[in-house]
């Protein structure tokens, strides 16, 4: 189920909310947790029930491993060391991810390299597998190091499946979630949290269905439909996509944070005005923050620790490798590898620059960062190398400078006018206003917030239904 759907907003969210607090009100706290897990699994299965067993097995297995590691010290079992238990756990999670997400990618590369003809598996990627796997890997490592401890299976199941963060993060830590679920104070309806939750949910919904989906019109036209792009079209395409992705993903995160707040749960911040970043290091501290936190703690740090006589250069190699992996985590294709690789290189350059203590004008720094991010996202969006090259060639002015055809595709001109309008609004929002998280700090039940909430919620609902029909008036 998507957050931006009628069934979620009008049925699932209200029903799960009221039953949860009703059970808590009756002091049936175990039942209320059970309800939350049930609701979350229902939410998950709405998409495709076939993969329900997968998430169940994953949760059960990881919990057992953690339990076994915990029990290890007490009972001094000898046939498996704590370390090998961790390795089994990691192997299981990574194996799951590799099998479902990367197998066809590997096979097709082997086929290309060796000229073989091994058949592809054509598995549908199980929803959210990238997210719940990461979250549980973090949990296993934390358990191994004694930083996380979970007694009850139900609590663990709530931690993994809690629906606001299940599908697309934020990627949460056990230690930041469990005290919140345990707190008695959080089991009572809190109107302030509901107001805040509805506010940020509405903003997120608006960002997703009104802003991001409007930018998608140009991004799709440029990336998927056009055969060549001239200078203006190519820049319009790539910047539209950067804005689309930012509003889409941060909007989705806002909805997650909002939905969780209704249940008195505070999810970690995931976006902090990333397009204002004045460096690539700065960018990754603002973009998908919980992913950066994860890869730093669980990929970069172990990698660095594994080096003998660590020095700055070696740390830079680790940074680059970490981002190659992070790139591939986004999806099984060379395009994502390139995306990760580009960011890896940029981070290394940024680090050396920092070390050299050279100064640079803030606006210039922002300009370089934004353009780099914008160009790297071309590889994030392009399905094939040729699509990426098409856009890059246009941006470099290598194609004939012709008319700006996005306005000329038949009756599409009204859509294009809307994109322009949203463009100006977005530039204002992105660069000159407080972001949604900053809006929450010091939130007052003021008329202004009331109007903003009502406006975003209503237009978010109107945006749930859009018309998609294809046009080719070009013949």
């Amino acid at each position, binding site marked *: 189920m998507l957050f931006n759907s009628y069934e979620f907003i009008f049925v699932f969210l209200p029903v799960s909310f009221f039953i949860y607090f009703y059970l808590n009100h009756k002091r049936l706290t175990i039942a209320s947790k059970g309800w939350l897990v049930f609701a979350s699994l229902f939410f998950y299965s709405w998409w495709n029930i076939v993969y329900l067993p997968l998430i169940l097995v994953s949760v059960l297995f990881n919990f057992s491993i953690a339990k076994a590691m915990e029990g290890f010290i007490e009972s001094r079992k000898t046939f498996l060391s704590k370390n090998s238990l961790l390795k089994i756990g990691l192997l299981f999670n990574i194996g799951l991810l590799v099998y479902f997400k990367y197998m066809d990618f590997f096979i097709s590369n082997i086929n290309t390299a060796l000229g073989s003809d091994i058949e592809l598996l054509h598995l549908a990627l199980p929803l959210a597998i990238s997210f719940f796997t990461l979250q549980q890997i973090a949990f296993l490592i934390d358990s191994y190091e004694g930083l996380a401890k979970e007694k009850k299976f139900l609590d663990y199941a709530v931690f993994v499946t809690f629906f606001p963060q299940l599908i697309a993060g934020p990627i949460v830590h056990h230690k930041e979630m469990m005290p919140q679920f345990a707190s008695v104070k959080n089991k009572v309806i809190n*109107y*302030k949290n*509901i*107001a805040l939750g*509805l506010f940020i949910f509405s903003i997120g919904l608006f960002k997703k*269905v*009104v802003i991001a989906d409007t930018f998608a019109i140009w991004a799709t036209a440029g990336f998927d439909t056009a055969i060549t792009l001239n200078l203006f079209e190519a820049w319009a395409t790539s910047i539209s996509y950067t804005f689309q992705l930012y509003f889409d993903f941060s909007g989705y995160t806002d909805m997650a944070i909002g939905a969780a707040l209704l249940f008195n749960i505070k999810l970690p911040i995931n976006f902090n005005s990333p397009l204002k970043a004045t460096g690539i290091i700065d960018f990754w501290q603002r973009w998908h923050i919980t992913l950066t936190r994860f890869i730093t703690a669980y990929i970069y740090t172990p990698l660095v620790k594994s080096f003998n006589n660590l020095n700055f250069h070696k740390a830079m190699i680790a940074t680059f490798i970490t981002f190659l992996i992070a790139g591939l985590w986004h999806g099984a294709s060379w395009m994502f590898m390139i995306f990760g690789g580009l960011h890896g290189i940029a981070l290394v350059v940024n680090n050396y620059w920092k070390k050299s203590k050279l100064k640079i004008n803030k606006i210039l720094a922002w300009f370089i960062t934004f353009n780099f991010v914008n160009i790297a996202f071309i590889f994030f969006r392009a399905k094939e190398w040729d699509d990426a090259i098409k856009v890059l060639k246009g941006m470099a002015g290598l194609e004939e400078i012709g008319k700006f055809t996005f306005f000329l595709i*038949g*009756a599409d001109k*009204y*859509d294009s006018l*809307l994109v322009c309008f949203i463009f100006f609004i977005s530039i204002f929002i992105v660069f000159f206003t407080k972001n949604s998280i900053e809006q929450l700090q010091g939130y007052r*039940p003021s008329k202004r*917030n*009331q*109007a903003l*909430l*009502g*406006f975003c*919620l*209503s*237009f978010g*609902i*109107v*945006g*749930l*239904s*859009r*018309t*998609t*029909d*294809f*046009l*080719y*008036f070009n*013949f």
Partner: protein
Amino acid sequence: MNTYKKHIRNSFIFSLLILVIVALINFIIDPYKQYGLNSLNPYFKNARYLNPGLIKNYNYDTIIVGTSNSANFLTKEIDKALGVKSLKVISTGSTAFENKSIMSLALRKEKVKVIILELDPLSWQGDKKRIHKSMTTLPTYLYDDNIFNDYQYLLNFDVLYSENISAIAGNFFGFQEKNTNIELAYYWADKATFSEENLLSYIKNIKAYKSPIDSKKISNNSELQLLKQSFDFNTLQLIKDYPNTKFIIFHPPYSILAFKMLEAENQLDMYLNLKKYIYESTKKYENVSLYDFQIEKNITHDLDNYLDDRHYSNLINNWMIEQIEKGTYLVNQDTIDIYINSLKTQVQKYDINMFINKK
């Protein structure tokens, strides 16, 4: 009352107010003509959304169903030739299921006496309920009479913005007036050039096309089965169910190059078999007249009639209406085999190098 509780309540009231206003605006302007309460002309753009409203609230006794190839029919020509009141409800790249959806709605409304249906072989490909790849779902809320699902129309962002603006700009400010003119609904021939030049690249495609593998021949049989199943489900069933409605169905005159391409792809025999099947399965129904315009060499071999290998000019649409009026090119027991064999021979005999050498 708790200030936050009041804050939430007021926010909800405010957003409900906006929703009501939006719904009212969409209801009054009604760009998809679902309620027929105003006389604004619709803006002919999103056919899959607009056509059901036209069916519900316009006057007609004849409808034209098909793809972009039927967009250049002029209803007044059809009305004059056949003595009917026709309405064009085509959609670009329409699939058989989409055609069925709009025909079913028209048949349920009981206003339609004649359906003119273009037989596009591509429309039956794939799953029998396939919709066009640009669509996530067909907007079924517009195709039924259930008012409770109309919220998807009344609270629709694109209806509120671009559809309403298009309709108002077209009706009151004369922007792209042509697109709000029902005579010209979905017409595109004025924007296109029809000439031999266009087809050069298709020639290259045919020449470059390597007939893939022999296994294609084996799979042809099951592919044909699927096409037949889709034809039965989406087309034949309606013919059976509505014996009092006349179905004028026709094979459109694609250029000879389109058939050359089929030949190169090893699909020509399959297509001819399908054509045979269409005749055999419809011949016993008296409410069907089947026309086959594909054998007319004067049309299909004159490449100045075409935009690309499949899209012919508006003159050909007019020509077809004349033929339907006269009853020429009718497929019957006497002509079926002649038509099929003649097309096959034409394709075999046509030498694409001749075309290249001429250039």
